[in-house]
């Protein structure tokens, strides 16, 4: 990489990447071994690993809009693994490790930036919970520790240590915490997958899933019907609606999640900072903008509209944390659609339909799982339905046997 950069530097003509583009669109083939519904990060990552590790390339990724244009483009791009349960930590820390090597693997810069993530505790109960999370995380090889107010002040000198009259007692300092350019992750995977023969069909909406004798036989799209050996749904934000087409219900409720960004300012904030009590997280992007996010909206909706009340409450909390931000202007806002499960863990693996696999329930933890999710879903599909150990705890039927993987405390609004 450094030598090719030097070579480009010495050239007189503008360097270009010859294979930068995705292949031109083609007609749908009548049949594919694997149909992936949804061309977001998870869908194209699954296609990539199917082609790369399992040699399965007769794969179509069907995307109703454009590549990575759904919730892949709407999250706040936080990568972390400091969850609470051993099942959760094992899964997410594998993803964090994969993210570290992605730019090299793609030969394409995903702007991965390991700046650490700091979650603030304002009550004794939260401090105890953080101590447990730090130990669980360390046990599974993550770098997380509990730090005191003095260290927090050194890490984030601009932080108000007494926001909303709730003194900062301690912080969960997760050194593996990082951010990356979310679009680039989808592009990198899509490029790698299509180079290996996978077909990506954008503007191709799946309108129905045909199930015969308990098996998926074909999917209907706005561009015609295709037969499939098996199908994967990776449609975060519309999981219940797609599952309904395949004929079953899911333990999911869908809410919007609003986020917003300020005008760019000088770099002042290195770690990603979130507060457990104020339900607010704040990070500065590589461009200098400050990104704010909070919890999902208070009631279910399939709509990315903006509300003034959420802006008011979220920004009031953000200004408590960083008072000088009151002088900044908000540049834009947006919303994503979050498929929330009651235990704040995903739903991955088998479905009531034999050869129809689920990659769903990605609430507010989908982007950070993209690589490991693609890898494990590819393993699941390639083995013909043998669920990898890493994702076995996330099976949908955990709800039927009351064996939830409770990540609420480590997820709600701390991202």
């Amino acid at each position: 990489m450094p030598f090719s950069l030097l070579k480009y530097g010495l050239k007189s003509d503008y360097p270009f990447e010859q294979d930068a583009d995705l292949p031109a669109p083609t007609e749908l083939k009548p049949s594919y071994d694997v149909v992936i519904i949804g061309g977001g990060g998870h869908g194209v990552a699954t296609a990539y690993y199917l082609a790369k590790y399992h040699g399965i390339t007769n794969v179509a990724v069907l995307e109703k809009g454009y590549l990575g244009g759904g919730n892949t483009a709407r999250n706040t791009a936080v990568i972390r693994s400091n969850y609470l349960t051993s099942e959760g930590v094992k899964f997410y820390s594998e993803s964090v490790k994969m993210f570290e090597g992605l730019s090299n693997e793609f030969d394409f810069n995903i702007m991965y930036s390991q700046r650490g993530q700091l979650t603030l505790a304002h009550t004794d109960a939260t401090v105890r919970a953080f101590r447990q999370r730090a130990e669980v995380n360390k046990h599974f090889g993550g770098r997380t520790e509990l730090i005191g107010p003095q260290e927090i002040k050194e890490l984030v000198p601009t932080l108000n240590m007494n926001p909303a009259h709730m003194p900062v007692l301690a912080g969960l300092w997760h050194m593996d915490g990082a951010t990356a350019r979310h679009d680039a992750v989808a592009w990198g995977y899509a490029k790698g997958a299509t180079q290996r023969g996978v077909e990506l069909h954008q503007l191709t909406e799946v309108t129905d899933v045909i199930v015969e004798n308990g098996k998926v036989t074909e999917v209907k799209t706005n561009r015609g019907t295709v037969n499939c050996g098996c199908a994967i749904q990776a449609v975060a934000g519309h999981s219940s609606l797609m599952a309904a087409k395949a004929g079953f219900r899911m333990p999911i409720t869908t809410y919007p999640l609003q986020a917003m960004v300020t005008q760019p300012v000088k770099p002042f904030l290195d770690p990603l900072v979130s507060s457990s009590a104020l339900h607010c997280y704040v990070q500065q992007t590589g461009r200098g903008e400050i990104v704010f996010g909070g919890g999902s909206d208070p009631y279910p909706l399939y709509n990315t509209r903006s509300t003034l009340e959420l802006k008011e409450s979220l920004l009031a909390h953000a200004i408590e944390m960083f008072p000088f931000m009151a002088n900044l202007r908000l540049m834009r806002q947006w919303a994503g659609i979050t498929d929330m499960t009651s235990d704040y863990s995903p739903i991955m693996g088998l479905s009531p339909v034999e050869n129809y696999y689920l990659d769903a329930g990605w609430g507010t933890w989908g982007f950070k799982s993209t690589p490991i999710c693609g890898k494990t879903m590819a393993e699941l599909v390639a083995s013909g339905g043998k669920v990898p150990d890493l994702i076995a705890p996330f099976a949908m039927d955990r709800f039927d046997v009351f064996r939830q993987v409770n990540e609420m405390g480590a997820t709600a609004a701390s991202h």
Partner: protein
Amino acid sequence: MKIMPCPLNGPRNISEFVHGGEVRDMPNPTTCSDKEWAEYVFYSDNQAGVVTEWWLHAASGYWFIAERHTVTDEIIRTYDPSEIFKARVEFSAESTAQEVSA
């Protein structure tokens, strides 16, 4: 601020209300299977369209039913639960306790 027309208190800011989930029939917890109970507690139609839901006006502790469009965010109609529930629903704590001890 979005306005919720409360059948008891009239139009109020939606931030005064708490969403309570879909209106659906509860299976008898003492006789239903685990799967039926899980279906009732966790699973949901989660439709994109008009849904019938429980809502609570937190300040007055009043539960009512709203018909709402989950794509357009329109509240179509709100009404007192007595329109649907004609008889009082009894929750028998005794029969549940017996089931557990047996």
